[in-house]
């Protein structure tokens, strides 16, 4: 089965975020980049499909700056077979990204297209279902595990207060969340092999971004909290503050 996994290069989630001088972007000096955590789950899910079926292929696809080659190599080191970078140097909103991906995916013959449920950083939760809609493919979001039927993929998703089992006709688009797919580490052998795997780079087809970041700022600071030191004896005071000052009870 042919699987494509769309992944994004994002700042390490531990990174301290500073705002750049332009005020519309982050200061990237000293920032370490990683594969977005949910996209790692998606890669893992894709690799397991290949392992469980014969004749499978997992390719990775990203839209981003040339530096994203490194991100793709990391995914190849986990075990993917090949990768494509659609180069775009400026900011794209979710729809712009989805369109660039859709152009590439249209003729890919993929049976399964996997996404992370959301990209760390942009935190949009939108690119996957947008791509599916642009390609007119069935799509299930927030999938924690899946298996195959004859012509369908059967997905488990956990939503507010319930678990659903959802069946989608193939080919299909899934967005993967934390669940069964704890990502594997790249082995040394994998890292060596990744250097020789095919990695193509092309210009992304670029669309004007409809969403403009006017200003990026630090989160509003919370006033210094009130810390009560007396253990259980502080509880009556806490409860009073919660009711009278915070209006929270």
């Amino acid at each position: 089965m042919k699987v494509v996994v769309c992944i994004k290069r994002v700042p390490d989630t531990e990174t301290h975020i500073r705002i750049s001088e332009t005020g519309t972007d982050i200061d990237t000096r000293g920032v370490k980049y990683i594969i977005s955590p949910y996209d790692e789950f998606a890669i893992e899910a894709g690799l397991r499909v290949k392992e469980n079926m014969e004749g499978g292929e997992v390719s990775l696809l990203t839209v981003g700056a040339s530096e994203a080659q490194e991100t793709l190599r990391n995914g190849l080191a986990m075990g993917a077979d090949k990768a494509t970078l659609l180069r775009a140097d400026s900011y794209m909103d979710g729809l712009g990204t989805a369109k660039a991906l859709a152009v590439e995916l249209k003729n890919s013959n993929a049976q399964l297209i996997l996404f992370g449920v959301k990209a760390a950083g942009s935190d949009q939760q939108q690119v996957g279902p947008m791509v599916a809609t642009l390609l007119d493919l069935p799509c299930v979001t927030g999938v924690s595990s899946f298996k195959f039927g004859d012509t369908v993929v059967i997905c488990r998703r956990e939503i507010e207060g319930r678990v659903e089992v959802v069946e989608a006709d193939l080919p299909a688009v899934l967005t993967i969340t934390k669940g069964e797919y704890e990502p594997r580490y790249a082995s040394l052998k994998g890292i060596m092999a990744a250097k020789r795997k095919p990695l193509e780079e092309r210009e992304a087809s670029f669309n004007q971004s409809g969403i403009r970041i006017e200003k990026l700022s630090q989160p509003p600071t919370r006033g210094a909290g009130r810390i009560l030191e007396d253990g259980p004896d502080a509880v009556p005071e806490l409860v009073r503050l919660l009711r009278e000052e915070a209006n929270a009870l």
Partner: protein
Amino acid sequence: MADVLAFVEQRDGQIGGGAREVVSAAAQLASGIGGSATALVLGGPGLAAAVEGLATAGATSVAVGEHEALAEYNPEAYLRVVVNHVRDGDFKALILSATSLGKDLAPRVAAELDVPLASDVTGMDAQGVVPLFIRPVYSGKAFARVSIDANLAIITIRPNVFPVGEYGAECHLSKFTPDVDPATWRVRVIERKDTVEGVVDVSEAAVVISGGRGMKDPANWGLLQELRDVIGPDAALGASRAVVDAGWRPHAEQVGQTGKTVSPKLYIAVGISGAIQHLAGMRTSQTIVAVNRDPDAPILSMADYGIVGDLFEVLPRMTEEIKALKSED
């Protein structure tokens, strides 16, 4: 006209509190751009009776699409009806709630209509020349103010953040029966199981009480449950990843980077150290309370109120005091 459409979610034929937030956010935006707020609700037959509260939340009209096959959410069916409704109307904006349904539906609608989507908005400034929307990025470590250049602006709003307004009760109700053909669906729900019967989900609860490794043993969760029970039906239990990974609590309760993002009115972190990945999921909560015996735990520097002490002594006392407070009400 510069009308704003609020897509209102029903569950089991009931309209939840989040629905009123969406309608009030639509009214807030509409007043900024000189129009009015109207709502669209889709569900099974008989739904029209449930939409009463939407008028006082700010809707001047409500369209109710009733069809047996719309009682439960199906992405393909809902997409068609919403897109047709938007095309038939004259709307400047569409607002949905950033619930799992909203996060599933909104991007599909945006792509189908070829307009961008601002997800998970927590604030807006509708008074300027162009409305600005505020959304947390980098898991809340920064806030972006964005403008949307399109003939229709689509946004999803984070639950529990937008206030519900008080408006006049004048509201026009219309019913319609959409064309729905389940035989064409390529995505089908084949099984549904409630996991937290009768209790609200952590992502929507007004109060979240989360336990971490400091709770020591899953058997001690009774202490958190008792506290939840005295706070009331709007309260839900959450958990840190450490206790989810240990198998003490289900993943559905995990708050943080790889769990749920919550913004309750009150977040109580018990025996949680406050790792950056945990903070990512709860830092936009309105009021944060932490109980931790370590005065240097990072969660205490994020908290509005903190108690330094042993949770096994503090929790029962909290339950007792809040119970006493509630019984006076």
